[in-house]
């Protein structure tokens, strides 16, 4: 049955959608960039973002009652990325990381924007899924350890352990990538 968009109901609905679009604009970076860091692929990240916002629309009343959009969005984004990630290729080992051959004194300064993004994404792939989620939320998104624990459904002690391991692995990756020894 076709549904036309005429009349007062349609106007209400269009107003509702316009309001929801404003909500999406407010939180779209949080969702898309978190998904991008967790998945490493912009198309997958867009798919997850779409699903996150559709779920947000269906649960608006509940989320508004919680009065904490970011907490809900982080939790759902991480869960959906986890579902997608299970079907994806496994993490890469730090030892398998290609070295950047550069004659510059500081190779980091010679990287283009795309290369820097690639370094970030590859370093994240060197982490386990849980380590990656913990590091992305804590170090990149700036959540507190407690907020990360709630988003991941873990204890703070577990999250601290995951974060410390992730930081050490990331350092190993970056040093190997730039063939630097600090």
């Amino acid at each position: 049955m076709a549904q036309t968009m005429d009349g007062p109901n349609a106007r209400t609905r269009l107003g509702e959608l316009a309001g929801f679009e404003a909500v999406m604009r407010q939180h779209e970076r949080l969702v898309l960039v978190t998904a991008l860091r967790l998945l490493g692929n912009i198309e997958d990240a867009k798919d997850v973002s779409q699903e996150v916002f559709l779920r947000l629309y269906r649960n608006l009343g509940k989320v508004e009652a919680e009065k904490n959009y970011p907490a809900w969005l982080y939790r759902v984004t991480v869960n959906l990325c986890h579902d997608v990630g299970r079907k994806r290729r496994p993490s890469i080992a730090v030892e398998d990381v290609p070295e950047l051959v550069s004659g510059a004194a500081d190779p980091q300064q010679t990287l283009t924007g795309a290369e820097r993004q690639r370094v970030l994404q590859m370093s994240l792939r060197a982490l386990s899924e849980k380590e990656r989620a913990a590091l992305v939320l804590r170090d990149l998104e700036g959540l507190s350890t407690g907020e990360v624990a709630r988003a991941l459904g873990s204890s703070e002690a577990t999250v601290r352990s995951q974060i410390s391991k992730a930081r050490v692995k990331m350092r190993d990756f970056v040093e190997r990538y730039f063939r630097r020894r600090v």
Partner: protein
Amino acid sequence: MNCVDWEERIALYAGGDLAPAEGQAVERHVAECAGCQMLLSGLRESLRLVREVHGEPVEAAHFAAVRARVLAELERAPARRWRFAWGFAMAAAAAVLLIAMWQRPERKTVTHALVPAPVVSRGGVDADLPPARVSRTVRPRHKAGSGRPPRTMASAPPEPAEPMVVKLLTNDPDVVIYWITGTKGE
């Protein structure tokens, strides 16, 4: 305690995740250990790099694409809900029909235990009929012309080989309907 034992705390310290007292202990160790100084320096450097890259803007087209896809999906949603509603309505109608068919009178077994025939006494016409115990499948059929549904039924005890007589009383004490049926109610 060797440096491996310090690694976790140094990593937490690099990101500002240690309590002040623990942080001071790490600082004291790092001040005396060249290897841990390198570890801390590398941790800080890599964190600075990834945070910097993470903060770089993402193309606006990606956000616009997500928004457009979500809004398009939501605009399509009502029509989809209506399709589901039609499906549910049809299923509900079918269920009601099935229940109605299942509960048709011929499927119902009516048991009267020593029926006192209250309506009979009201009409005063059948006071001579004794209370009867009836247990069988009944298929009531209204005789045309009565105009109103029967108020009650009373019947003789079942005789296996003989036709059964059902007497239907109406609101009008002068109108009594007799229904002679076969032993199977036909």
